[in-house]
């Protein structure tokens, strides 16, 4: 990517479009990756709470378990940013998250 010249940069290094950190993908940091078992997940929001990287997404995606339990929301992992720290799996009360090795493509 071509780097900007001094004329193109805001004075003082002010970042006028904060939130552009979404371009700074940290997903390739992980060696292990969390996989959420939708059956076991009791939708308690703890994994969403603990994640330092907002990489646990809380989606309005209904899910009905085999035992006919109906959930209005589901949790999923944003692997573009998950660093594989495992805090979600560690804190999950329902042990619904497994940390599995990232297969090196």
């Amino acid at each position, binding site marked *: 990517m071509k780097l900007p*010249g*001094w004329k193109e940069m*805001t004075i003082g290094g*002010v970042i006028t479009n904060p939130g552009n950190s979404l371009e700074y993908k940290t997903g390739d940091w992980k060696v292990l990756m969390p996989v959420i078992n939708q059956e076991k997940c009791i939708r308690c929001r703890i994994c969403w709470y603990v994640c330092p990287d907002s990489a646990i997404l809380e989606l309005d995606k209904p899910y009905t378990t085999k035992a006919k339990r109906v959930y209005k929301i589901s949790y999923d992992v944003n692997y573009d940013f998950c660093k594989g720290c495992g805090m979600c799996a560690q804190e999950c009360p329902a042990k619904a998250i497994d940390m599995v090795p990232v297969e090196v493509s």
Partner: protein
Amino acid sequence: MEAAQEVKSKRPIPLSTNYAVAHAAKDLDVDVVAAYPITPQTTVVEKLSEFVANGELDAEFIHVESEHSALSATLAASLTGARAFTATASQGLALMHEILHVASGLRAPIVMSVAMRALSAPISIWNDQTDLFNARDAGWIIYFVHTAQEAYDTVIQAYRLAEDRGVMLPVMVGYDGYVMSHTTEPVVVEDRASVLKFAPKRPYPYRLDPDKPVTIGPIVPPEYYYELKYQQVKAMEGVPEKAEDVDREFQKAFGRGYGIMECYMCEGADALIVANASYAATLKSVLPDAWREGLKVGLLRLRLYRPFPAKHFVNYTSNVKSVLVIDRAISYGAPYQGPLANEIAGLKVREDLGFNLTSAVAGIGQRAMEPEDFLALARLAWEARTRRYPETIFYGVRE
């Protein structure tokens, strides 16, 4: 030249330079003053406190616990959209040094007055310019003023310059502690409306505001840092011309102007003395005696110091045979041990200027200088037309 605007003649009032600076800040309707007391700047902040206490100035006075915090609060205020002012001296200027670079690096339009004073150790509350010369490369625009009136006028010009979108650099207004800060002299002050007409508030463009979130002060890796510093270089390069424009407009508006470098009694002079602040004022009073002795020596008064007005310096010195530079600070072990002389030597080489350069250090720790001493320096400048003094002369020190 269209007709000069009708200039209301004002009766001068007696003010010290400290008070003149405080009046300027008041008339500029500054929004925030964050300052820590230090001799000889104290009466600036005392006067400002009175103004705020009496409702003459609607500003937040932040009683900080150190000069490091003084400039930190002033900087943050400026970046939040305030017209922010502070004042300091000596140890205070040294203590806030880290933040000097943060302020210029973030391009904050702050104005700070500096009642120049010696630096510890040993501690000295008396005047010289060691403090300011140890802050000269922090990226601030620096003025030296030689009268209380000029101090008042320059603080006003400084905000106009600092807030100019093409400049966006903080400004220091330096004057000699005690010899000027605590010396009462006649000063014409202007009414707030006309001051604000001349220098309307132009707040920081990316100010901290929840309606328009920005990130100010990120960590900048090697691929970007250099360009941001180069922006400061380019902004500073544009300052001499803009400073002159501001001064010209000030002249039109208020009938007083100074230029950015003043050559006094230079007509037919064969030697010049470069001096600033109180020494320049005293030389103006002493040089006629020199001329009567046949010493055709002029005064080159340095007003705008950073950036250094090279073009003007070349014009004024290209046909004199000797230039003696008075320094009020010491660069221990430098080629010339007067910092200003050192810089001027560089310019002399760059522009192939033919005069003999003489460096004289004087008035360290406010060592008394009588009119005869200034005459002696004029003789030295005159002699140096035909005789070279390669080493810095430490004038007035006892062996």
